[in-house]
């Protein structure tokens, strides 16, 4: 047990049942970045984000949009020759960023995730119209109108719910969540 730990270890510690430092196995081959369908939109490609973590560039990592642009398609994970679960790393970085409440300004991802989880904790099921409020106001006018047009058509085709669905045993459900996350006005 040393006095402190490098950033790469701090991030590895977030991974599921982590053993050692998987990120140190990265050989910077770039298979992940070549595979990633969103890499072109990221500030730093997946390969770069691993390099930055291994170099201890904490601020640069937290300010990057990379993990918020990950669509969880797992294509990088199944192809990594070093068997690094890069998608899981992206989840871990999102978690790290949310817990620290530090992320690049203007991203919809964090607000959207928070709204989603909040909604499930309240009702047990997803309800698209509530969710929409977490992203639609970040859209520009044209995007906004396109989204409204799409939603109207969905509604007319009977594909949008009017009322939120809720599970029946909601009280039990909320107490169950309270045993995992010990917060909220329970008991």
């Amino acid at each position, binding site marked *: 047990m040393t006095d402190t730990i490098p950033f790469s270890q701090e991030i590895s510690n977030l991974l*599921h*049942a982590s053993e050692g430092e998987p990120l140190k196995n990265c050989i910077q081959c770039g298979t992940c970045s070549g595979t990633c*369908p*969103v890499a*072109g*939109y990221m500030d730093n490609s997946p390969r770069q984000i691993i390099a930055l973590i291994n170099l201890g560039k904490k601020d640069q990592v937290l300010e990057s949009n990379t993990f*918020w*642009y990950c*669509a*969880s*398609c*797992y*294509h990088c*994970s*199944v192809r990594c020759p070093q068997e690094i*679960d890069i*998608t899981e790393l992206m*989840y871990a970085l*999102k*978690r790290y960023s*949310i817990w620290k409440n530090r992320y690049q300004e203007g*991203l*919809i*991802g964090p607000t*959207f*995730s*928070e709204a989603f*989880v909040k909604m*499930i904790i309240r009702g*047990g*099921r*997803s*309800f*698209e119209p509530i*969710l929409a409020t977490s*992203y639609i106001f970040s*859209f520009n006018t044209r*995007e906004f109108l*396109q989204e409204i*047009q*799409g939603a109207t*058509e*969905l509604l007319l*085709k*009977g*594909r*949008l*719910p009017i009322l939120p*669905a809720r*599970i029946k*045993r909601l009280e*039990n*459900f909320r*107490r*169950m*969540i*309270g*045993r*995992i*996350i010990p917060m909220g006005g329970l008991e």
Partner: protein
Amino acid sequence: MKEFAYFPGCSLEKIASSYHISAVETTKKLGILLKELDDWNCCGATTYFYIDELLAYTLCARNLAIAEKTGLDVVAPCSACYKNMFFTAAHLKKDADLADHVNFALEEDNLHFKGTVNVKHLIEVFAEDIGPDELKRKVTKPLEGMRVAPYYGCQIIRPQKDKEDVEQPQFFEELLTAIGATPVNYPLKVRCCGGSLILSSRTAALTMVRNLLQSAVDAQASVIATACPLCQVNLEVYQQQVNQEFGTNFSVPVMYFTQLIGLALEIPHKKLGIGKEFVAMAPHLLPVEHVWGLPRKAT
């Protein structure tokens, strides 16, 4: 009659209700009963993991424990629900401490995860429990001449579960062949549709959708078949936005694989939820060859 505990998931309640109804009807016709889980809750999509994985596992485990009470294996038609429940079951079976903690929470709803349940995607029920041969025997109206792009998407095949082929899977093609359709080979069949990025990183996702549509159209597919509600919505509902954004002219129907199977089994359209599409298939009364003629090519 073989039975499964059926976890429809939130999307199938409304936005993908045609997937729900066609899933129930086609399996019934093929001798399988899908019994909806009592009081199921949201699987968490991809977002719980950002906040707390233990919470993510607990929410999935609640559904798994409800299923275990019935003694049946769980079937999920949505790829994200499937992936979440499959890997929750796998993690809990491996990690006793995690299972103990999750079970402590489940006590609040008088539930317990024992680890006896298996999780399947709906398409696996067709590919494995029914099988292409049996399906072929039941087909009364083969979809001859229909060129279909089988769209696997991501989370049915990834992450890898065992040693299965994650780069060039064939089970979707085999099902399409069994119903008399012609599966087209196109390079992007296992690429991502963008998932929830369509909301959070719109330009990136619309580009991904455009690339997929183009790839299917280039292979002269006249319809895309999906096995996931999110893929369906991205590829179909956002097709208009892709056209507006990129000046393309896509008009490709995106159907659930259960709808196509249902057509081959001559289940009435209404029972397959056909009619709620943004991009409709051509009128069904025409001979199949004429119905699914070559698509308009994107400009």
